Protein backbone atom coordinates (compact mmCIF):
# COMPACT_ATOMS: atom_id res chain seq x y z
CA UNK A 1 0.00 0.00 0.00
CA UNK A 2 2.78 2.35 0.98
CA UNK A 3 4.58 1.38 -2.21
CA UNK A 4 1.45 2.20 -4.25
CA UNK A 5 1.13 5.58 -2.60
CA UNK A 6 4.77 6.36 -3.36
CA UNK A 7 4.31 5.31 -7.00
CA UNK A 8 1.21 7.44 -7.40
CA UNK A 9 2.94 10.46 -5.96
CA UNK A 10 5.96 9.87 -8.18
CA UNK A 11 3.78 9.39 -11.27
CA UNK A 12 1.99 12.61 -10.45
CA UNK A 13 5.32 14.41 -10.20
CA UNK A 14 6.41 12.98 -13.56
CA UNK A 15 3.06 13.96 -15.09
CA UNK A 16 3.41 17.57 -14.05
CA UNK A 17 6.95 17.93 -15.32
CA UNK A 18 6.43 15.97 -18.51
CA UNK A 19 3.17 17.65 -19.45
CA UNK A 20 4.71 21.08 -19.06
CA UNK A 21 1.93 22.13 -16.74
CA UNK A 22 3.70 23.27 -13.66
CA UNK A 23 7.32 24.30 -13.52
CA UNK A 24 7.07 26.01 -10.18
CA UNK A 25 4.20 27.60 -8.35
CA UNK A 26 4.28 30.65 -6.12
CA UNK A 27 4.57 29.99 -2.42
CA UNK A 28 1.93 30.78 0.20
CA UNK A 29 3.75 34.01 1.03
CA UNK A 30 3.68 35.09 -2.62
CA UNK A 31 -0.05 34.26 -2.83
CA UNK A 32 -0.59 36.36 0.30
CA UNK A 33 1.28 39.31 -1.20
CA UNK A 34 -0.63 39.02 -4.47
CA UNK A 35 -3.92 39.08 -2.55
CA UNK A 36 -2.74 42.12 -0.57
CA UNK A 37 -1.74 43.98 -3.76
CA UNK A 38 -5.12 43.18 -5.36
CA UNK A 39 -6.90 44.42 -2.25
CA UNK A 40 -4.91 47.66 -2.11
CA UNK A 41 -5.50 48.42 -5.81
CA UNK A 42 -9.25 47.80 -5.36
CA UNK A 43 -9.32 50.15 -2.36
CA UNK A 44 -7.50 52.84 -4.39
CA UNK A 45 -9.93 52.37 -7.32
CA UNK A 46 -12.95 52.91 -5.07
CA UNK A 47 -11.23 55.74 -3.18
CA UNK A 48 -10.51 57.79 -6.33
CA UNK A 49 -14.13 57.25 -7.44
CA UNK A 50 -15.21 59.43 -4.51
CA UNK A 51 -12.80 62.31 -5.24
CA UNK A 52 -14.84 64.73 -7.43
CA UNK A 53 -11.81 66.71 -8.66
CA UNK A 54 -10.05 63.52 -9.71
CA UNK A 55 -13.19 62.18 -11.41
CA UNK A 56 -13.43 65.42 -13.40
CA UNK A 57 -9.77 65.29 -14.44
CA UNK A 58 -8.68 63.68 -17.73
CA UNK A 59 -6.53 61.11 -15.90
CA UNK A 60 -9.48 59.48 -14.10
CA UNK A 61 -10.41 56.96 -16.81
CA UNK A 62 -6.82 56.09 -17.82
CA UNK A 63 -5.88 55.62 -14.15
CA UNK A 64 -8.79 53.23 -13.56
CA UNK A 65 -8.02 51.30 -16.76
CA UNK A 66 -4.36 50.92 -15.78
CA UNK A 67 -5.24 49.75 -12.26
CA UNK A 68 -7.75 47.27 -13.67
CA UNK A 69 -5.23 45.97 -16.21
CA UNK A 70 -2.63 45.51 -13.47
CA UNK A 71 -5.11 43.50 -11.36
CA UNK A 72 -6.08 41.45 -14.42
CA UNK A 73 -2.43 40.69 -15.24
CA UNK A 74 -1.54 39.80 -11.65
CA UNK A 75 -4.37 37.27 -11.35
CA UNK A 76 -3.58 35.73 -14.74
CA UNK A 77 0.18 35.51 -14.11
CA UNK A 78 0.23 34.35 -10.49
CA UNK A 79 -3.14 32.76 -9.67
CA UNK A 80 -3.66 31.19 -13.11
CA UNK A 81 0.08 30.37 -13.19
CA UNK A 82 0.41 31.61 -16.77
CA UNK A 83 3.79 33.08 -15.90
CA UNK A 84 5.06 29.59 -15.05
CA UNK A 85 3.10 27.53 -17.60
CA UNK A 86 3.74 26.30 -21.13
CA UNK A 87 3.86 28.96 -23.89
CA UNK A 88 1.01 27.23 -25.76
CA UNK A 89 -1.35 28.07 -22.89
CA UNK A 90 -0.13 31.66 -23.01
CA UNK A 91 -0.87 31.80 -26.74
CA UNK A 92 -4.32 30.25 -26.29
CA UNK A 93 -5.22 32.96 -23.80
CA UNK A 94 -3.48 36.07 -25.10
CA UNK A 95 -4.36 35.48 -28.78
CA UNK A 96 -8.16 35.68 -28.34
CA UNK A 97 -7.74 38.37 -25.68
CA UNK A 98 -5.81 40.62 -28.06
CA UNK A 99 -8.37 40.05 -30.84
CA UNK A 100 -11.18 40.83 -28.40
CA UNK A 101 -9.53 44.04 -27.12
CA UNK A 102 -8.84 45.26 -30.68
CA UNK A 103 -12.48 44.54 -31.60
CA UNK A 104 -13.67 46.51 -28.54
CA UNK A 105 -11.48 49.51 -29.40
CA UNK A 106 -12.62 49.46 -33.04
CA UNK A 107 -16.27 49.34 -31.92
CA UNK A 108 -15.66 52.32 -29.63
CA UNK A 109 -14.33 54.31 -32.59
CA UNK A 110 -17.13 53.07 -34.87
CA UNK A 111 -19.86 54.21 -32.49
CA UNK A 112 -18.22 57.53 -31.69
CA UNK A 113 -17.13 56.86 -28.10
CA UNK A 114 -13.48 57.35 -29.07
CA UNK A 115 -12.55 60.11 -31.48
CA UNK A 116 -9.19 61.15 -32.93
CA UNK A 117 -8.51 64.68 -34.08
CA UNK A 118 -11.93 66.26 -33.54
CA UNK A 119 -11.92 69.83 -32.22
Amino acid at each position, binding site marked *: MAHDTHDTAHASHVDHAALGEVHEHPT*WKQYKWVALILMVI*TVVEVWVYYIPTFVASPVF*VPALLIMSAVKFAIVVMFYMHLKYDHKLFRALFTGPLIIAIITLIV*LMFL*FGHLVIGRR
Partner: protein
Amino acid sequence: MATTAVVGHGHPPTTTGLDHRKIAIWAFIGSECMLFTSLISTYLVYKGRSVSGPFPHEVCNPPQCATALKPILNIPVTSVSTFVLLMSSLAMVLALAAVENKDKPGWAGTGAWGRALASSRLWLAVTAILGATFLGFQAYEFTSFVHEGLTIRTNLFGSSFFTLTGFHGAHVTVGVLWLLTLLAIDVKRGLGPKDALLVDISALYWHFVDVVWIAIFTLVYLIR
Protein backbone atom coordinates in the same frame (compact mmCIF):
# COMPACT_ATOMS: atom_id res chain seq x y z
CA MET B 1 9.05 10.40 -20.79
CA ALA B 2 5.91 12.31 -21.58
CA THR B 3 4.44 9.28 -23.30
CA THR B 4 5.17 7.06 -20.33
CA ALA B 5 3.59 9.49 -17.96
CA VAL B 6 0.46 10.00 -20.00
CA VAL B 7 -0.01 6.28 -20.72
CA GLY B 8 0.48 5.64 -17.04
CA HIS B 9 -2.77 7.53 -16.39
CA GLY B 10 -4.74 5.66 -19.03
CA HIS B 11 -4.69 8.44 -21.61
CA PRO B 12 -3.18 8.20 -25.07
CA PRO B 13 0.06 10.11 -25.68
CA THR B 14 -0.41 13.63 -26.99
CA THR B 15 1.46 15.20 -29.89
CA THR B 16 2.12 18.36 -27.89
CA GLY B 17 3.21 16.50 -24.77
CA LEU B 18 0.55 18.48 -22.92
CA ASP B 19 -2.64 17.13 -21.41
CA HIS B 20 -5.57 17.70 -23.77
CA ARG B 21 -7.85 18.67 -20.90
CA LYS B 22 -5.65 21.58 -19.94
CA ILE B 23 -5.30 22.71 -23.55
CA ALA B 24 -9.10 22.48 -23.82
CA ILE B 25 -9.74 24.65 -20.75
CA TRP B 26 -7.31 27.32 -21.99
CA ALA B 27 -8.96 27.27 -25.44
CA PHE B 28 -12.34 27.54 -23.69
CA ILE B 29 -11.13 30.46 -21.59
CA GLY B 30 -9.82 32.15 -24.75
CA SER B 31 -13.24 31.82 -26.37
CA GLU B 32 -14.90 33.08 -23.19
CA CYS B 33 -12.65 36.17 -23.38
CA MET B 34 -14.25 36.95 -26.71
CA LEU B 35 -17.77 36.29 -25.41
CA PHE B 36 -17.39 38.62 -22.44
CA THR B 37 -15.62 41.27 -24.49
CA SER B 38 -18.58 41.28 -26.90
CA LEU B 39 -20.97 41.75 -23.97
CA ILE B 40 -18.78 44.51 -22.47
CA SER B 41 -18.54 46.15 -25.92
CA THR B 42 -22.33 46.12 -26.21
CA TYR B 43 -22.63 47.77 -22.80
CA LEU B 44 -20.06 50.43 -23.68
CA VAL B 45 -21.55 51.12 -27.13
CA TYR B 46 -24.97 51.75 -25.55
CA LYS B 47 -23.54 53.67 -22.58
CA GLY B 48 -25.15 57.09 -22.18
CA ARG B 49 -27.72 56.43 -24.92
CA SER B 50 -30.70 55.50 -22.78
CA VAL B 51 -33.50 57.97 -23.39
CA SER B 52 -35.24 57.24 -20.09
CA GLY B 53 -34.01 56.40 -16.58
CA PRO B 54 -32.92 54.94 -14.28
CA PHE B 55 -29.34 55.74 -15.24
CA PRO B 56 -26.13 54.17 -13.87
CA HIS B 57 -24.31 57.33 -12.75
CA GLU B 58 -26.16 60.33 -14.08
CA VAL B 59 -28.31 62.51 -11.88
CA CYS B 60 -31.44 63.89 -13.53
CA ASN B 61 -33.64 66.51 -11.92
CA PRO B 62 -36.78 68.32 -13.18
CA PRO B 63 -37.29 70.02 -15.57
CA GLN B 64 -34.84 67.85 -17.53
CA CYS B 65 -36.64 64.75 -16.25
CA ALA B 66 -40.28 64.34 -15.31
CA THR B 67 -39.23 62.84 -11.98
CA ALA B 68 -35.94 63.18 -10.12
CA LEU B 69 -33.50 60.33 -10.78
CA LYS B 70 -30.47 59.36 -8.70
CA PRO B 71 -27.56 57.10 -9.75
CA ILE B 72 -28.71 53.52 -9.45
CA LEU B 73 -25.35 51.72 -9.08
CA ASN B 74 -24.46 50.98 -5.47
CA ILE B 75 -20.67 51.27 -5.42
CA PRO B 76 -20.09 50.40 -1.71
CA VAL B 77 -22.04 47.13 -1.98
CA THR B 78 -20.36 46.18 -5.26
CA SER B 79 -16.93 47.01 -3.82
CA VAL B 80 -17.53 44.54 -1.00
CA SER B 81 -18.69 41.85 -3.45
CA THR B 82 -15.57 42.51 -5.57
CA PHE B 83 -13.41 42.05 -2.50
CA VAL B 84 -15.25 38.78 -1.74
CA LEU B 85 -14.56 37.44 -5.25
CA LEU B 86 -10.88 38.45 -5.08
CA MET B 87 -10.50 36.61 -1.77
CA SER B 88 -12.19 33.55 -3.27
CA SER B 89 -9.35 33.41 -5.81
CA LEU B 90 -6.84 33.34 -2.95
CA ALA B 91 -8.79 30.47 -1.33
CA MET B 92 -8.81 28.64 -4.68
CA VAL B 93 -5.01 28.74 -5.12
CA LEU B 94 -4.65 27.49 -1.54
CA ALA B 95 -7.04 24.60 -2.32
CA LEU B 96 -4.94 23.67 -5.36
CA ALA B 97 -1.70 23.91 -3.36
CA ALA B 98 -3.22 21.67 -0.66
CA VAL B 99 -4.21 19.03 -3.23
CA GLU B 100 -0.85 19.13 -5.04
CA ASN B 101 1.10 18.76 -1.79
CA LYS B 102 -1.14 16.29 0.01
CA ASP B 103 1.55 13.59 -0.03
CA LYS B 104 4.12 15.89 1.55
CA PRO B 105 3.36 15.95 5.29
CA GLY B 106 4.35 19.19 6.95
CA TRP B 107 4.78 21.15 3.69
CA ALA B 108 2.52 23.88 5.06
CA GLY B 109 4.27 24.01 8.40
CA THR B 110 3.16 22.78 11.79
CA GLY B 111 0.49 23.98 14.17
CA ALA B 112 -3.13 24.91 13.59
CA TRP B 113 -2.39 27.28 10.71
CA GLY B 114 -0.23 24.69 8.97
CA ARG B 115 -3.00 22.09 9.28
CA ALA B 116 -5.55 24.59 7.98
CA LEU B 117 -3.28 25.52 5.07
CA ALA B 118 -2.93 21.83 4.14
CA SER B 119 -6.70 21.17 4.16
CA SER B 120 -8.05 21.11 0.61
CA ARG B 121 -11.58 20.58 1.96
CA LEU B 122 -11.38 23.78 3.98
CA TRP B 123 -10.20 25.92 1.04
CA LEU B 124 -12.62 24.37 -1.45
CA ALA B 125 -15.45 25.06 1.00
CA VAL B 126 -14.24 28.63 1.62
CA THR B 127 -14.04 29.29 -2.14
CA ALA B 128 -17.56 27.94 -2.70
CA ILE B 129 -18.94 29.96 0.23
CA LEU B 130 -17.29 33.17 -1.03
CA GLY B 131 -18.65 32.48 -4.53
CA ALA B 132 -22.13 31.95 -3.12
CA THR B 133 -21.75 35.18 -1.11
CA PHE B 134 -20.92 37.05 -4.31
CA LEU B 135 -24.07 35.60 -5.90
CA GLY B 136 -26.03 36.76 -2.86
CA PHE B 137 -24.75 40.30 -3.37
CA GLN B 138 -25.72 40.11 -7.04
CA ALA B 139 -29.22 38.86 -6.18
CA TYR B 140 -29.56 41.77 -3.73
CA GLU B 141 -28.40 44.22 -6.39
CA PHE B 142 -30.75 42.88 -9.06
CA THR B 143 -33.69 42.90 -6.65
CA SER B 144 -33.02 46.48 -5.55
CA PHE B 145 -32.74 47.59 -9.19
CA VAL B 146 -36.08 46.03 -10.04
CA HIS B 147 -37.63 47.78 -7.01
CA GLU B 148 -36.20 51.08 -8.27
CA GLY B 149 -37.77 50.53 -11.68
CA LEU B 150 -34.86 49.11 -13.69
CA THR B 151 -35.50 45.81 -15.46
CA ILE B 152 -33.95 44.21 -18.54
CA ARG B 153 -36.70 45.87 -20.65
CA THR B 154 -36.62 49.37 -19.15
CA ASN B 155 -33.90 51.00 -21.28
CA LEU B 156 -30.63 50.33 -23.11
CA PHE B 157 -28.69 50.50 -19.85
CA GLY B 158 -30.96 47.89 -18.22
CA SER B 159 -30.78 45.53 -21.20
CA SER B 160 -26.99 45.63 -21.58
CA PHE B 161 -26.31 45.71 -17.82
CA PHE B 162 -28.50 42.73 -16.89
CA THR B 163 -27.25 40.72 -19.88
CA LEU B 164 -23.59 41.32 -19.02
CA THR B 165 -23.77 40.84 -15.26
CA GLY B 166 -26.35 38.06 -15.63
CA PHE B 167 -23.99 36.08 -17.89
CA HIS B 168 -21.21 36.61 -15.37
CA GLY B 169 -23.46 35.52 -12.51
CA ALA B 170 -24.39 32.36 -14.45
CA HIS B 171 -20.67 31.59 -14.83
CA VAL B 172 -20.13 32.10 -11.09
CA THR B 173 -23.06 29.75 -10.40
CA VAL B 174 -21.48 27.06 -12.59
CA GLY B 175 -18.19 27.61 -10.77
CA VAL B 176 -19.80 27.22 -7.35
CA LEU B 177 -21.48 23.96 -8.45
CA TRP B 178 -18.15 22.74 -9.83
CA LEU B 179 -16.42 23.56 -6.52
CA LEU B 180 -19.14 21.81 -4.51
CA THR B 181 -18.71 18.72 -6.70
CA LEU B 182 -14.95 18.73 -6.03
CA LEU B 183 -15.64 19.21 -2.33
CA ALA B 184 -18.01 16.20 -2.34
CA ILE B 185 -15.34 14.07 -4.06
CA ASP B 186 -12.75 15.27 -1.54
CA VAL B 187 -15.01 14.36 1.36
CA LYS B 188 -15.90 10.97 -0.15
CA ARG B 189 -12.49 9.65 -1.22
CA GLY B 190 -10.03 12.50 -0.77
CA LEU B 191 -8.29 14.52 -3.47
CA GLY B 192 -4.56 13.96 -3.89
CA PRO B 193 -1.72 14.86 -6.24
CA LYS B 194 -3.12 12.51 -8.91
CA ASP B 195 -6.23 14.74 -8.99
CA ALA B 196 -4.25 17.99 -9.15
CA LEU B 197 -5.03 18.53 -12.81
CA LEU B 198 -8.80 18.30 -12.19
CA VAL B 199 -8.56 20.91 -9.43
CA ASP B 200 -6.20 23.01 -11.57
CA ILE B 201 -8.75 23.11 -14.41
CA SER B 202 -11.56 24.18 -12.08
CA ALA B 203 -9.20 26.78 -10.55
CA LEU B 204 -8.43 28.22 -13.98
CA TYR B 205 -12.16 28.58 -14.66
CA TRP B 206 -12.69 30.23 -11.27
CA HIS B 207 -9.85 32.70 -11.71
CA PHE B 208 -11.14 33.56 -15.17
CA VAL B 209 -14.52 34.41 -13.67
CA ASP B 210 -12.62 36.62 -11.24
CA VAL B 211 -10.66 38.49 -13.94
CA VAL B 212 -13.85 39.08 -15.92
CA TRP B 213 -15.32 40.73 -12.83
CA ILE B 214 -12.19 42.87 -12.44
CA ALA B 215 -12.91 44.26 -15.92
CA ILE B 216 -16.67 44.63 -15.32
CA PHE B 217 -16.17 46.40 -11.98
CA THR B 218 -14.00 49.07 -13.58
CA LEU B 219 -15.75 49.49 -16.94
CA VAL B 220 -19.36 49.30 -15.71
CA TYR B 221 -19.31 50.47 -12.10
CA LEU B 222 -16.41 52.91 -11.68
CA ILE B 223 -15.99 54.67 -15.03
CA ARG B 224 -18.73 57.24 -15.36
